[in-house]
C-alpha cells in the first residue's frame, strides 16, 4: 500500500507543478523553462530551515513560498525584455546556474551530498513519515494549490492573462498593465511550485541537486503540453499519466538488465502516440460561457447607447489637446508638427494618403509611441509620458487597423476583459474578497452582454473570436473599445470592408456615442462615411496637418481632392 500511496503522492506533487507551470505558459504564454528552479528553491528552503534552524512544516513552506516568489520576480525581468526562443535559452541558463549554486554552496546546501535527515511533517504530534500517512496532506495541499490556480485561471485576472497571451498590444490597449501581470503570474506560479518543493523535502526527508535538473523542467513541460495548454484539469491529467505510466510499465515483465531501458522506450513511444492522436493536448482550452442565469440585456440591438456608456461633461468642451506632436524613427520624421483637438460630442475624421502618419498619430496619442516633441493634454493632464494602459485608464482608448482580437477568447470574454476597474483583476480581491469579485463579475457579464447586444453580437456571445466573420470582428472591435469606458475613442479604420448595412449601423453607433458625450476620432478613407458622421476633418500628409475644417467645406476643395487621390 505504501507503494501505491507513494505513487499517488507523486501524482499530487507533479499535479501542483504542472498546474502552476500551466499558469505561466498556458495562460500567460510565457515560455520560461525554469520551473525546476522554483521547485528546488521550495525544497531547499524547507531542507535548510528545518535542519539548520529547526523550523517546522507550515513555516518552512511559507518561507519557501516567499523566497521562491521573489526568485520568480527576478526571472520575470528578463521575460519582459526577450521573448520566445531567447527566453527559453535564458531560463535554461538560469536552470543550469541553479544546479551549480546548489552543488557548490556546500555550507548551506550540502553540495552534491544534498541535505539528508529533513524531519517529517508533524500533524497533531503524529509524524507523517510514510507514504500512507503523507498522502492525505499531499492531496489536501494539491487540492489547495489547484484551487488557488483554478481560482486564478477562472478569474478576470486569468482572462486578462489569456488576453495578454493572445496579443500584448491589444491587452495594453484595453488597459491591462502587462508589467504587473507578468510579475504577479511569475510570483504566483513560482510560489505554488515551491509548495511541491517543500512537500517533497519533508516527504523524502532528503534533497539533492540532481532532483532538480533541466530534465525535471522538461518532464513538467511534457505534462502541461500533454494535458493541454490553458486547461488546468489537463495539467492534472498530464501529471497523472506521466507519473503512472512508468510505474505501470514496471509491471510489464521484461527479462534481463535491459528491462528498464525497454520500458523507457515504450514510454517514449506512448508519449509520441498520444501527441499524434491529440496534438492540442488531451483537454483543449475551455471557452468561457456566461452563466445561463445571467441578467439578460435590457438594451435592444442597436438601441440607445447612452444606457451603456455615457460620459459626463459639457458638449463641445476640449478633452484632448495635442500640440506640435513630432516623432522620428532613426532620422525619418514620421510625424512633424501635428496639432489636433478633440471635443466632447464631436467626431473628428483623420484623412490622408497611405503613409501620411495617421496611424503614427494614433500611436502617439495612445501612448504606444513616445513623441520626440510636443505635448498631449487630457483635461489638462499631460499624457505624453504615460504607458498605453495608463492612457486607457485615464480615459483615452484606441483600436487597431489590424483588429488584434483575442482570437482564442469568446466574444463575451473579449468584451469582458476590456471592462475597466475590475476587482477580479486584483489578485488580493480574487482570493480575499470572493463575494465582491463575484458580484462585480455578475454585473460585468451583464454589461458585456449589453454591449454585445448593442453591437449586434449577442447571438455570437459564446463564439470564439477566431470563428467570426470580418464584419463581426469589426463589430467586436467597437464593442471592446466601448467596454473600456474611455470617453475619448480613437478608431483606426472602423468601417473598411463592411457592407452598407453594417456601415450604417456602426455610423449610427458612432453618432450615438458622440451624443453620449464621447470625443471621437476616426481614421477613414470612405468619404461618404466621413461626410455622414464627422463634424470636422483633419487632413494630414507627410506627417503634418495640411488643413482642417468641416467636411463639406473641405470636400469641395479641388486641390485637396487631387492630392488625396494622387
Amino acid at each position, binding site marked *: 500500500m505504501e507503494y501505491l500511496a507513494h505513487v499517488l503522492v507523486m501524482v499530487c506533487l507533479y499535479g501542483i507543478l504542472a498546474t502552476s507551470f500551466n499558469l505561466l*505558459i498556458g495562460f500567460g504564454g510565457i*515560455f520560461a523553462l525554469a520551473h525546476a528552479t522554483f521547485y528546488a528553491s521550495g525544497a531547499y528552503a524547507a531542507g535548510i530551515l528545518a535542519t539548520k534552524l529547526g523550523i517546522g512544516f507550515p513555516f518552512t513552506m511559507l518561507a519557501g513560498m516567499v523566497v521562491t516568489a521573489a526568485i520568480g520576480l527576478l526571472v520575470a525581468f*528578463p521575460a519582459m*525584455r*526577450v521573448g520566445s*526562443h*531567447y527566453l*527559453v*535559452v*535564458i531560463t*535554461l*541558463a*538560469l536552470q*543550469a*546556474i541553479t*544546479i*551549480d*549554486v546548489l*552543488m*557548490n554552496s556546500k555550507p548551506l546546501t550540502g553540495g552534491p551530498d544534498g541535505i539528508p535527515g529533513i524531519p517529517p511533517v508533524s500533524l497533531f504530534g503524529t509524524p507523517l513519515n510514510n507514504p500512507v500517512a503523507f498522502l492525505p496532506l499531499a492531496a489536501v495541499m494539491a487540492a489547495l494549490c489547484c484551487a488557488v490556480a483554478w481560482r486564478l485561471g477562472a478569474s478576470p485576472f486569468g482572462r486578462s492573462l489569456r488576453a495578454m497571451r493572445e496579443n500584448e498590444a491589444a491587452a495594453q490597449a484595453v488597459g491591462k498593465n502587462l508589467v504587473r501581470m507578468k510579475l504577479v503570474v511569475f510570483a504566483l506560479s513560482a510560489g505554488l511550485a515551491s509548495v511541491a518543493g517543500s512537500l517533497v523535502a519533508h516527504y523524502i526527508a532528503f534533497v539533492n541537486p540532481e532532483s532538480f535538473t*533541466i530534465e525535471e523542467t*522538461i518532464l513538467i*513541460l*511534457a505534462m502541461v*503540453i*500533454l494535458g493541454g*495548454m490553458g486547461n488546468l484539469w489537463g495539467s492534472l491529467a498530464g501529471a497523472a499519466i506521466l507519473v503512472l505510466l512508468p510505474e505501470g510499465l514496471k509491471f510489464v515483465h521484461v527479462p534481463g538488465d*535491459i528491462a528498464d*531501458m*525497454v520500458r*523507457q*522506450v515504450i*514510454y*517514449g*513511444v*506512448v*508519449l*509520441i502516440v498520444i*501527441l*499524434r492522436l491529440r*496534438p*492540442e*493536448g488531451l483537454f483543449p482550452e475551455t471557452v468561457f460561457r456566461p452563466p445561463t442565469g445571467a441578467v439578460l440585456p435590457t438594451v435592444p440591438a442597436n438601441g440607445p447607447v447612452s444606457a451603456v456608456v455615457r460620459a459626463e461633461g459639457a458638449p463641445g468642451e476640449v478633452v484632448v489637446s495635442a500640440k506640435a506632436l513630432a516623432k522620428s524613427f532613426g532620422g525619418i520624421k514620421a510625424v512633424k508638427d501635428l496639432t489636433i483637438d478633440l471635443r466632447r460630442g464631436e467626431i473628428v475624421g483623420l484623412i490622408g494618403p497611405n503613409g501620411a502618419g495617421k496611424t503614427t498619430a494614433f500611436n502617439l496619442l495612445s501612448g504606444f509611441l513616445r513623441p520626440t516633441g510636443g505635448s498631449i493634454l487630457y483635461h489638462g493632464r499631460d499624457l505624453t509620458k504615460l504607458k498605453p494602459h495608463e492612457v486607457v485608464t485615464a480615459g483615452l482608448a484606441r483600436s487597431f487597423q489590424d483588429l488584434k482580437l483575442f482570437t482564442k477568447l469568446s466574444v463575451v470574454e473579449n468584451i469582458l476583459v476590456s471592462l475597466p476597474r475590475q476587482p477580479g483583476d486584483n489578485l488580493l480581491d480574487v482570493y480575499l474578497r470572493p463575494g465582491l469579485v463575484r458580484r462585480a463579475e455578475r454585473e460585468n457579464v451583464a454589461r458585456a452582454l449589453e454591449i454585445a447586444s448593442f453591437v449586434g453580437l449577442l447571438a455570437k456571445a459564446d463564439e470564439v473570436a477566431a470563428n467570426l466573420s470580418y464584419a463581426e470582428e469589426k463589430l467586436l472591435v467597437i464593442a471592446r473599445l466601448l467596454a473600456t469606458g474611455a470617453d475619448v475613442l480613437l478608431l483606426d479604420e472602423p468601417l473598411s470592408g463592411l457592407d452598407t448595412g453594417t456601415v450604417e449601423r456602426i455610423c449610427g453607433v458612432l453618432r450615438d456615442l458622440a451624443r453620449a458625450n464621447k470625443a471621437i476620432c476616426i481614421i477613414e478613407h470612405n468619404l461618404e462615411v466621413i461626410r455622414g458622421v464627422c463634424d470636422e476633418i483633419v487632413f494630414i500628409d507627410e506627417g503634418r496637418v495640411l488643413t482642417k475644417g468641416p467636411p463639406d467645406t473641405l470636400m469641395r476643395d479641388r486641390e485637396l481632392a487631387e492630392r488625396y487621390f494622387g
Partner: protein
Amino acid sequence: MDLLIQLTLNGLFNGAHFALLAMGFALIFGTTGVVHFAYGPVYAVGAYIVWALVALAGLPFWAAVILGVAATAAFGVASYLFIYRPFEIGGSPPFVVLVASLGLFIVLKNLIGIVFGTDVKTVDSVAYDVHFVGDAFFTTVQVGQVLAALLVGCGIALFLRASRYGKAIRAMADNREMATVIGIDTKRLSILVFALGSAVSAVAGSLVLLRDGLNPNMGFGAVFVAFVAVIVGGVGSLRGAVIAGFLLAFVQSLGMWQIPTEWQNTIVFVVLFGFLLARPSGIVRRA
C-alpha cells in the same frame, strides 16, 4: 601564461566541436523550424555506428566515417518523415513538436543502450600523435576537429551559396511561404536538411569517438550546446551559430583561468545571460 595558451587552444578545439554540432542543428532548425531535440541521440547513433563499423566490422576509420555519416543522414531523414512530418501536416504548435521530439529522444537514447550496451565505446586501432607548441599540447584528433569544422563549414557555405538546392534552403529559411510560392518543394528540402544536419553531427560524433569515447547519454549535452549556440548566434544564421559555438567554448575554457573549475557552467551561462539581455536577437541579426 602557459596555462593561458593551453586554455586558448582548448577553447579552439572544443569550439570546433561545438561549431560542428551547432551547424547541423542550425541547418535543421533554421530551415524547418523544428526544435529537433532528438538531434542529440541521432548524433550519438551516428557515432555508435562508426564505432561498430571500426570495432566490430573491422573497417578502416575513414570508411567507417563515410558509411556512418550516410547512415546518420538516413536516420535523421527517418526522424523527420515519421515523427515531425505528420505534426507539420497537422499544423501542430512548435511546443507540441518539441515534446514529441523529447519522446523520440527518450526512445533513441534507450535503444542505443539496448542495442550497443551501456559501457563506454572506444577504438584503439586508430593511432594518433600528440603535438606541442611551446609548452602547450594538442593531439591529432583535435587538429582533426578543427579541420573538420573548417572543411564542413566551408563545404556547407559553398553548397548554400552556389548550388540550386543550397539557395533553395536559404530561401526556405528566409521565408517559407515565399519558397512555396516560387515552386520550391518544402518537403523535399526538409528531407535534405535533416539528412545534411544529421550527417554533420555524425562527423562531430566520429571525432569524439576518438577523443573521449561514447556513452548512450552523450546526446543530451550535445543538443543543449547546439541549441544554445544557434539561439545565441541568431536564428537562421549558420555563421552566427559557428561563432557562438566557438564563443561558448572559449568562455568555458578561458573563464576558468582564475576561477575554480566547479563554476564552469555558471561562468558560461552568466556570460550568456548577460549577452542575450544586451543583444536579444543574437550575434548575427537577420536583415
